[in-house]
């Protein structure tokens, strides 16, 4: 299949990469750019482990055709740290044990980031609703809710 050049902003830096029209953003990130933070859990948009922010909005990168992000801004878990400092959410997840195997964590963090950007002080129920599309088989939901609440409360 014919390859095309895709140019977009990835974690603050412009990248150009050759892709085919059928490749998803997840394929391009993981296989071509070796940005392996976003995980391939189902390739079907149902687990949420591949979630990235596209112009600030959470999207399933496995359901996003790569060429549709031309010229746009993509943030993955690799882009959360600023100047070597962990993001507040990363600190809270780490210190409060809001993960076990960690495979869903990159997706959880991106959705939580988007939630706090829209609603800096979400209620417990608002967190549960907003995060509901992301699955964690280790069952760390309660710890994730608490970590997000702790960040919202200014503890980090």
């Amino acid at each position, binding site marked *: 299949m014919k390859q095309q050049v895709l140019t977009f902003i990835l974690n603050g830096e412009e990248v150009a990469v050759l892709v085919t029209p059928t490749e998803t953003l997840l394929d391009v990130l*993981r296989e071509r750019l070796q940005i*392996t933070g976003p995980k391939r859990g*189902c390739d079907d948009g149902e687990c949420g*482990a591949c979630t990235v922010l596209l112009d600030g909005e959470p999207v399933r990168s496995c359901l996003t055709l790569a060429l549709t992000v031309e010229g746009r801004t993509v943030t993955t878990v690799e882009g959360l740290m600023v100047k070597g400092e962990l993001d507040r959410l990363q600190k809270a997840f*780490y210190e409060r044990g809001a993960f076990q195997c*960690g495979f869903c964590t990159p997706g959880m963090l991106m959705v939580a980031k988007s939630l706090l950007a829209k609603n800096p002080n979400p209620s417990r129920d608002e967190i549960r609703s907003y995060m509901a599309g992301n699955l964690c*088989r280790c069952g760390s939901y309660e710890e994730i809710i608490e970590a997000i609440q702790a960040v919202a409360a200014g503890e980090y």
Partner: protein
Amino acid sequence: MTQYVGQAMPRYDGIGQVTGTTKYVDDIVLPGMLYAKCLRSPVHKGIIRHLDLSAAERTPGVVGVLTAQDVPGQNIYGASGDQPVFNPDHIRYKGERIAAVVAVDEDTCMEALEKVKLEIEEQEPVFDMFEAMKPGAPIVRPGTTHNLHEYMPGMTTRVIKLGDVEQGFAEADLIIEGRYQTTQQDHAPIEPHVSVAYLDPANRLVIHTVSQCLYFHLSQLVRVFGLPMSQIRYIGGTIGGGFGGKNDIHADHVAGLAALKFRKPVKYRETRREDLRYSGKRGVFVMEYKTGVKKDGRLVANHIKEYHDTGAYGGFSAYATEKCGMFASGPYWIPNILVEAKTIYTNKVVSISMRGFAIINGQSTMEIQMGKIAEALGMDPWELRFINAWRDGDMGASRYIVRGAGALEAMKKAAELAGVQLPAHLMAMSSRRR
């Protein structure tokens, strides 16, 4: 002196998980890496009459194919040593692997798989374990005459007994019976099954695995590859959840065989669909209980008939059936116990270990019995459990001695946290003495 045990502290390796830098096996991408995909049986039971992979092999981008003939060692793996990596003849469950295509990418593999000519003479399968036990039922394992696991030659029931149940029932004031069925459950770790294999400069086979139990699997893999253990570098340690599902080999055999044959790095990964449909599952148990109890609540006899569906191959199922029976009377002192347990083959995916392995099946059913008993006696369900809970020195079904008992302590704490006021005579009980 230091005292770190007992302290809450974050995970040693946790920064990797929150920054996305922890390396999982699917994160490994090597130059020139090939990919594999498997041809799976479209039928539940049958005999392969014809398999033609030539058109698949000619597909541009395909490097080659793998079948049973490409297994240098023995074409068997699994905890019971009875599963073929690639089934050459008698299909036992839908989705069983028959062959693999190895190509430059997965799309090419899928394209090639479309071109495979496969003819299977379909046979009548059996799915229900009670149907499978009837005379004349379809035979799951070719060459055998019935569908029951033999614990020893000719022994199809594992008996575990303590005391004398008949005497126990004679002493009982009330007998409660119940029949329960548990669920076939998928592990569904968010990390799918995946393996990366290649040859190192010393010509040794390197496999990056998602195994939960490397030495268990290494002993199975050396047999498949026909290699001494020292010729395999089996590397793992950090995985994206297992829940028992990764106590089974799903990908390492295929990736390893491909790397050995084509002498290039190979990644083999199952899709979520393949995992949900065709990987091993928590097997279904049917538990039949007959429990005798005195009016004062003391349990005096428990007769358990246990039926465990192992699916098409043995897996860990016989072990699981025994382990379930050993603990299926719950954390209670019952002087007379009889367990009669059977493991049954059906044409379903293989039953393997899963979180709560074998124990959940007994606990989740015996506790319903306890609820029914409390109701029948008109007794508080807490009191029934407090009266019977193990104390140190009590004995379980297979005559193990209970040490460090803690059921009463767990119940007291749970009642306190839930706001349940327990009467003083229960709060005064301790696992240290009866």
